């Protein structure tokens, strides 16, 4: 398949800190060009580990034990560091979780937004400035000249995340890893940011791995979804199929646990304990994941 962008297959990893505890168990997932895939799971499910592996920033305490991670046919895990760093930031970009810490408080937005353009594309200051203006208006920032001159603390959280999105798309990457990009934001801003990421993704034809713990977010912007628990893929497939016809009890319980806007007085349904018991049983016995379509 020529339009296959990313193909992760049989990826397993252990944590060296917790005495060789597995944190990824035989994870496989693939991504087509221009596809948005949600990577869903609770804390410790392994979604961030996958994102970090994609960016080549796994901490030293994590060791990949088997599997491949092919990006345009080349395995990121065995690639020479030099080739890898040429891809990172350029072909694979990151939208970080917290725009508060993702911008250097001591540098103006212009400097930070144009780093990639100058370092990776060899642009001169004037061209980079023009491109930065263009990018900021693309993420619907009204007064781009003022924002470029501003320091991060002069911008709101939503504005900062817009800047981060502009920076992520600045080098026309083929894949953007969005690491819970709305968790640190106000609920009212979250929606705008989601719409913006989807809009940018469509306009640039970029594939997105969207890391989140929120199935509601997945329903809004993801074409497909991979649900993880305990480092293992539980269920995966097109978003519409998985949400409309969840086959695994965990998926069903998660969907039931979400707030129902049509019945606001219904309350929240926690995932029952027996579901977790069954999950742990399946992880021990190495049961197959459920794949839709």
């Amino acid at each position, binding site marked *: 398949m020529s339009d296959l962008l990313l193909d992760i297959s049989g990826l397993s990893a252990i944590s060296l800190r917790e005495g060789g505890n597995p944190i990824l168990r035989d994870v496989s997932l693939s991504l087509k060009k221009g596809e948005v895939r949600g990577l869903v799971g609770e804390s410790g499910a392994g979604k961030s580990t996958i994102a970090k592996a994609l960016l080549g*920033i796994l901490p030293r305490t994590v060791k990949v034990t088997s599997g491949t991670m092919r990006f345009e046919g080349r395995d990121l895990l065995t690639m020479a560091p030099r080739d890898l760093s040429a891809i990172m930031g350029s072909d694979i970009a990151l939208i*970080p*979780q917290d725009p508060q810490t*993702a911008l*250097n408080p001591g*540098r103006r937005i212009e400097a*930070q937004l144009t780093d990639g353009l100058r370092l990776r594309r060899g642009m001169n200051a004037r061209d980079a400035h023009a491109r930065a203006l263009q990018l900021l208006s693309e993420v619907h920032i009204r007064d781009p000249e003022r924002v470029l001159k501003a320091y991060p603390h002069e911008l709101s959280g939503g504005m900062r995340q817009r800047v981060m999105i502009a920076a992520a798309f600045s080098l026309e990457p083929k894949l953007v890893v969005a690491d819970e990009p709305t968790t640190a934001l106000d609920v009212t801003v979250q929606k705008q940011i989601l719409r913006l990421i989807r809009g940018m993704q469509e306009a640039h034809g970029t594939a997105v791995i969207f890391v989140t713990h929120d199935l509601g977010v997945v329903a809004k912007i993801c074409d497909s979804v991979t649900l993880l628990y305990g480092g293992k893929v539980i269920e995966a497939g097109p978003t519409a199929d998985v949400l409309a016809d969840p086959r695994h009890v965990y998926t069903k319980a998660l969907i039931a646990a979400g707030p129902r806007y049509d019945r606001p007085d219904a309350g929240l349904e926690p995932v029952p304990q027996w579901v977790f018991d069954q999950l742990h049983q399946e992880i021990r016995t190495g049961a197959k994941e459920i794949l839709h379509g």
Partner: protein
Amino acid sequence: MTAYSFFHRVLMAAITLFGVAVIVFVLLRVVPGDPIAMMISPGASEADIAALRAQYGLDQSLPVQFWIWLTSVLSGDFGTSISLRRDVLELLAERLPATLELAAAALVFAVVLGIVIAVTATLLSRTKLSPLVDTLNGLFLAVPDFVWALALVLIFGVLLPVFPLSGRINPDSQEGFATQFYLLESLLTLRFRDLADISLHMIMPVLALGLPLASIITKVLKEALAEAMVQDYILLARLKGMSRLRLVLQEALRNAIGPTIALTGVQFTFLIGGTVIVERIFAYPGIGNMAIDAVINRDLPLIQGLVLVFGALFILVNLATDALVVAFNPRMEA
């Protein structure tokens, strides 16, 4: 800085100086020791002593003495040194430049060395050399300036006599200077032989004063850099293809330097205090050295003048530190 906060600071500085003046004036007259007793020759008559006492105003009551002294200081008259029989202001003007040059040189040395070591240690933070740097720095932190001074005298003055042991300049070339800022003047007038001579004289006192400060700067800056290096913006900059050196210098250093400047300012005032003993050890002709003689001789006008100068220096250093901290932190622009 707004006009209001500037005025506020100047007022605070004036009040602080006044407080320093009161405390020193009272303390000097409470502690035992009589300046007149130091001056008279044996066998002087009671009348001679009384005349001398009256000449220096010491026969007046304390508040009157303070009032006389304060009003004359405000009009620029710091009085006459009892032991040296010279105008205090003149003495200060003669000696202060030497101390300023010494303290400034020690500061520059400490800042440069501290930054270089902290940045290098950060670049090496994942290697086995890192704990070695910490251990060595811990050792340097524990050694105070006067111990350095004595050790340096022993090593480079006695065992391996490469540096001049005392003084500020070769006495023969002292005549050719228009100001007391020998280092600065020789540099600006391009007299490199004098410059080399002055620098050689300064090396040991600068090391003694600068090494403790350098290790403090290293410790604080290294910790601040380590804290900055795990931030997301560093990670993103790394993804954008920035080299590790550039990550440290361009991204991390600018956020780590704020707390370092604040602390360096405080520590620099200690360094100025340290010039007293270090100048003494190296017979360096600054105000610190003069302060020790003044105290030994109970030279009240000179001590008061010196303490005021030290007080003013501390206040100026603190003002400069605050201004620098603001300059390096865009969040504090006001």
